[in-house]
């Protein structure tokens, strides 16, 4: 509760730090904010060519939307995924990058983690807006589902914040954390149904005569649920299962609580160690 109040009291600082993040991101680049759209565009292009064209991954037909376009299928999951992966990798670095500030001024340091994610959240919302426009043009009437999308965005932001809090403090003491995470991110990417539908994952896997319930294990990854929920809302135009929303919420809130707890523990000697 204390933490919530602290966040609330320093909301002005949080918004200022987010603004700093946004203003400085594309300073001195000719294309400026266009980059924040060009980056996802290029990855969509790559995955479409490699997975959609070369490997012939078939997008499942959306129920009830009837949509079957691979690029749309990709977009609905890739944009949230990018927010997750950028959010995690950048928030882990947020304390080290702002070492000068930590050593010289006092303010709640978790705001550095939160503002990094806040900056990315703004970009994510813009990208999501573009995706919505594209979907509308393609005939997917997503507008009624947007309130639930917003809820999902909030849950995802908490998830990223939780991981950021958990690992950014640790990264100050052990700079390996960042490298370790950089290793994990592509693994997570391919164990989440972003570039392929979940139906490609076998329900059971036969190894040495034994059957492993691969799909059930796979679905324990909260990102699988998250991506699935985004797809249900934006691609299929249906309500995601309450179970999976609850599962995401438990992970998100749990990670924020644990993350904040760990952060408070590590905060103690931050100014000396950073």
């Amino acid at each position: 509760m204390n933490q919530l109040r602290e966040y609330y009291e320093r909301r002005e600082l949080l918004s200022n730090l987010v603004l700093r993040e946004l203003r400085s991101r594309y300073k001195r680049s000719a294309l400026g904010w266009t980059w924040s759209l060009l980056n996802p565009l290029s990855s969509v292009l790559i995955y479409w060519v490699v997975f959609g064209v070369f490997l012939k991954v078939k997008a499942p037909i959306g129920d009830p939307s009837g949509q079957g376009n691979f690029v749309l299928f990709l977009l609905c999951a890739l944009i949230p995924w990018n927010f997750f992966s950028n959010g995690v990798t950048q928030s882990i670095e947020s304390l080290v990058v702002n070492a000068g500030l930590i050593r010289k001024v006092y303010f709640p340091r978790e705001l550095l983690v939160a503002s990094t994610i806040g900056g990315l959240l703004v970009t994510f919302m813009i990208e999501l807006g573009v995706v919505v426009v594209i979907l509308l043009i393609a005939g997917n009437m997503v507008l009624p589902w947007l309130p639930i999308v917003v809820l999902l965005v909030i849950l995802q932001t908490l998830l990223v914040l939780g991981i950021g809090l958990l690992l950014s403090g640790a990264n100050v003491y052990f700079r390996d954390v960042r490298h370790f995470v950089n290793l994990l991110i592509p693994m997570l990417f391919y164990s989440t149904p972003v570039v392929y539908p979940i139906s490609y994952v076998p329900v059971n896997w036969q190894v040495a005569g034994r059957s492993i319930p691969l799909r059930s294990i796979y679905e324990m990854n909260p990102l699988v649920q998250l991506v699935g929920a985004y797809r249900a809302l934006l691609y299929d135009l249906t309500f995601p299962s309450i179970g999976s929303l609850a599962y995401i919420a438990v992970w998100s809130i749990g990670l924020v609580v644990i993350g904040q707890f760990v952060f408070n523990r590590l905060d103690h000697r931050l100014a000396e160690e950073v």
Partner: protein
Amino acid sequence: MTAAVVVDHVSKRYRLYHERNQSLKASLLRGRRARYEDFMALNDVSFEIKEGTAFGLIGENGSGKSTMLKCMARILRPDGGSITTRGKLSALLELGAGFHPELSGRENVYLNGAILGLSRREIDARFDEIVDFSGIEQFIDAPVKNYSSGMYVRLGFAVAINVDPAVLLIDEVLAVGDQEFQNKCTEKISQFRREGRTIVVVSHALSSVRELCDEVALIEHGRLIQVGPAVDTIDHYLTEILSIDPATLGIARRSTGEIQLQGVELLGESGEPVGSLALGDSVTFRFHFNALKPVSGPVFGMSLTSSDGVLVTGTNSRDQGLSLEIPTGLGWIDLAVPRLLVSSGKYHVTGTIYDTTQMTPIHEVGDLHAFDVAEGNPKTSGITSLGGTWRA
């Protein structure tokens, strides 16, 4: 009178790492713990700062006084004890900390203000005053990376001072900017004092601490040695810790001591040390010093006094247009005299170092060296010679 800051049995331990485990591999190979030694930067320090007073923290480099200030500013957390402050606190530890180089001065004022705890509306209300104080109106919309270091610091000071704190912490940052800006800062601090705010200063400049502060705490090796009226504590510091002769306390009190004169060597024509001299000799006075920190633009001076106390001559490096940058550490400076034109007798050398404004002494030694001058050519009466030659 209530206390603005209560420091209650505060201890702060630093870890001095012998081999730092900043990688997982190193930590696995060496076992879970990195090898480190605890270093007590502060050891059970307690004192109170009364509301509306100016309080100084003095001590040698590494004594823990800056750590104390950082603990007060909540940047560091003490390992033991507690610090309680009444009212809003603003720290001038590094001016412009948190400025983003790519953002404009205006954007940075809002950002820095928010970091220091101001709301947007409060900054709006003070914006003109901040810009006015910093004196950089024309550049306020330029990115701060294009600012000179002076402009940077001025803007940082202007923001920090406008936070409207009840307690202001200052760490030797006042030695910045040109004379005009320094005067502005001093004025602002006096105004703060008149308004009944509390000021805490960490400084090496004993003269300014003495002028500004009501009470001073002396910290040595992390322990509080003495706390009390400024004059008493500073004198205790000078005589007990810096071992300064009580006879020269007068000058020492005013001195900042950033550079310490250590002695004079007399060198002959080919650079060899000489003991005694004769009128008309060529001699170089080599002043050895130890700079405790880098000093920009100090002025070295020397004067000669005859044994009966008459000032014979005085000269300083500024008059000859020498501008100096002294790095930390030992060094020397020469005064080359092609012909020593003083008549026979004993002379005393006074060495002085002043700061660049020539207002504040850095170090002054009344009898740094004494030497004898023998009769030479031409013979002369009085204390000085014209060095002239009679012709007919």
